[in-house]
């Protein structure tokens, strides 16, 4: 694969009253084009997604009606990574040299109210109060803590890191550090997870300009190479959100397969990763995904977290921009936010939250309903 990220743009995450999700997408795209030193009319292919803020391809009304092909994608929390996959395929197959991938969203406050019938379940599943992503995350981490004999206090440590890192990120939603005590003492949402351990649905937009190696060489920007992008769905026996039943034997989650294939495709091992952004829908998800992605062995998370290894200045920094917990989760934009942060880190442009040592390898991971995961590896 020889695809480079040559431009990045973001509209701040959080709440921006009066600015539609679509408008935020346009602002992010203009910023990405300017960063790449190209214009919308130069773009040969575009792809994008939004779950709650309308069709991504309508941004052309304001960016310019240039006739460029534009594909809309909708893959839950993997929407951004799926958009990247499509753009990469177009470049790899020689059909385009310069592409844009866009993700934006604007969700209502509060937990998502999912429709059972949209995922093939009976209406009883929603009406009796079982169809909540928050319940799934509570139950998954409850079992994980039990299986690996991990202390519940780890959850507040992970959330405190997210708010600490978010405070260093002017694009983040939550920029006020919170103590582990305040996080643990906050109202319980889904045991063992409190209010401040969860990310919230929010707003925001990210756009990336992607180029073939040939095209990247002609642009003045500092390219970062996208070495692999892999998406997987669930297997029989994996424990997934919105499951009225589970098989008695456990299979690996789609995260395990997506991460392993991503590393294999890139010829890079988890030990080579200098900075990682992984799905932290809630604090427990960051813990479980450390093990599932192979960044550490399952059960080893306690040691790494308590020793500070996952802090910005630790040896294995994770969620340096504050992750979903500090940024919120505008679903269409969330996966691209991780890539945006990794490009900043690899360029050395992350400012107060820049990881040390001149990072060369950066990893991203998303996971979401109904059992889908996607990972990317970027190198400099």
């Amino acid at each position, binding site marked *: 694969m020889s695809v480079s990220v040559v431009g990045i743009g973001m509209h701040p995450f959080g709440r921006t009253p009066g600015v539609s999700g679509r408008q935020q997408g346009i602002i992010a795209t203009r910023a990405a084009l300017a960063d790449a030193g190209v214009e919308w009319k130069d773009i040969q292919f575009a792809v994008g997604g939004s779950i709650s803020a309308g069709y991504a391809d309508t941004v052309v009304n304001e960016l310019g009606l240039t006739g460029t092909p534009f594909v809309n994608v909708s893959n839950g929390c993997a929407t951004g990574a799926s958009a990247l996959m499509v753009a990469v395929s177009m470049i790899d197959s020689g059909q385009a040299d310069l592409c844009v991938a866009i993700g934006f969203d604007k969700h209502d406050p509060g937990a998502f109210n999912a429709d059972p019938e949209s995922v093939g379940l009976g209406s009883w599943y929603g009406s009796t109060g*079982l169809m909540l992503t928050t319940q799934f995350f509570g139950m998954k981490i409850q079992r994980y803590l*039990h299986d690996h004999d991990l202390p519940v206090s780890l959850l507040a440590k992970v959330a405190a890191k997210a708010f600490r890192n978010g405070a260093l990120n002017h694009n983040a939603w939550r920029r006020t550090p919170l103590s582990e005590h305040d996080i643990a003492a906050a109202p319980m949402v889904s045991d063992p997870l409190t209010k401040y351990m969860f990310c919230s649905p929010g707003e925001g937009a990210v756009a990336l300009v992607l180029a073939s190696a040939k095209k990247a060489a002609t642009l003045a920007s500092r390219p970062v190479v996208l070495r692999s992008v892999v998406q997987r769905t669930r297997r029989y026996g994996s424990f997934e959100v919105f499951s*009225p*039943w589970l098989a008695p034997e456990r299979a690996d989650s789609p995260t395990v397969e997506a991460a392993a294939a991503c590393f294999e495709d890139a010829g890079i091992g988890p030990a080579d990763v200098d900075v990682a952004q992984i799905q932290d829908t809630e604090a427990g998800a960051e813990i479980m995904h450390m093990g599932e992605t192979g960044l550490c062995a399952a059960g080893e998370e306690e040691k790494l977290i308590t020793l500070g290894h996952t802090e910005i200045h630790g040896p294995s920094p994770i969620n340096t921009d504050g992750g979903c917990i500090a940024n919120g989760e505008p679903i269409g934009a969330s996966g691209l936010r991780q890539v945006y942060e990794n490009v900043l880190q690899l360029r050395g442009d992350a400012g107060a939250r820049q990881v040390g040592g001149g990072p060369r390898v950066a990893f991203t991971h998303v996971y979401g309903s109904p059992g889908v995961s996607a990972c990317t590896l970027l190198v400099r």
Partner: protein
Amino acid sequence: MAHPAEAEDRTPDGTEDPWMGGRFVDPDLICLNGDGESALRGSRCDRCAAITFPTQSSCPRCAATEMSIHPLPRHGVLWTYTIQRFRPKTPYDGPADFEAYPVGYVNLGDEVLVESRLSAPPDRAPRIGEEMELIFTPYTRDADGDTVRTFAFRAVAEDGGEKP
């Protein structure tokens, strides 16, 4: 198999009958087992024996399209749980006056794990590994004021210990 609605009212093992007083949230979720007791209505693959709940018309493991109705065991062991602490948005139709409720997965005889509301003693949290049994319990009233029941699992021993 006789539909439970056609069977006479009964309260096997002293549990509440799903059809008594009001209505059950979705009649397709329950059936009678070989002992004439109300049970959750699963399906079993004729080829590889994978079990699903609710029923499916094809097998998620081997993709066979021959599936048979399979009443699930009424007892199991709690595999994991959480407690729903806020009132869910629609399509949840529980009472406006919200009370937190526990939810978990119960391993039914290593056949299948079923996600369910739990009826735990209010003064203690559910415990992973504790024995649970199927009950049918009211969870709301519909627009006509009729009680609507759903399935749930409750701890066999109030203190969470082993049943003697």
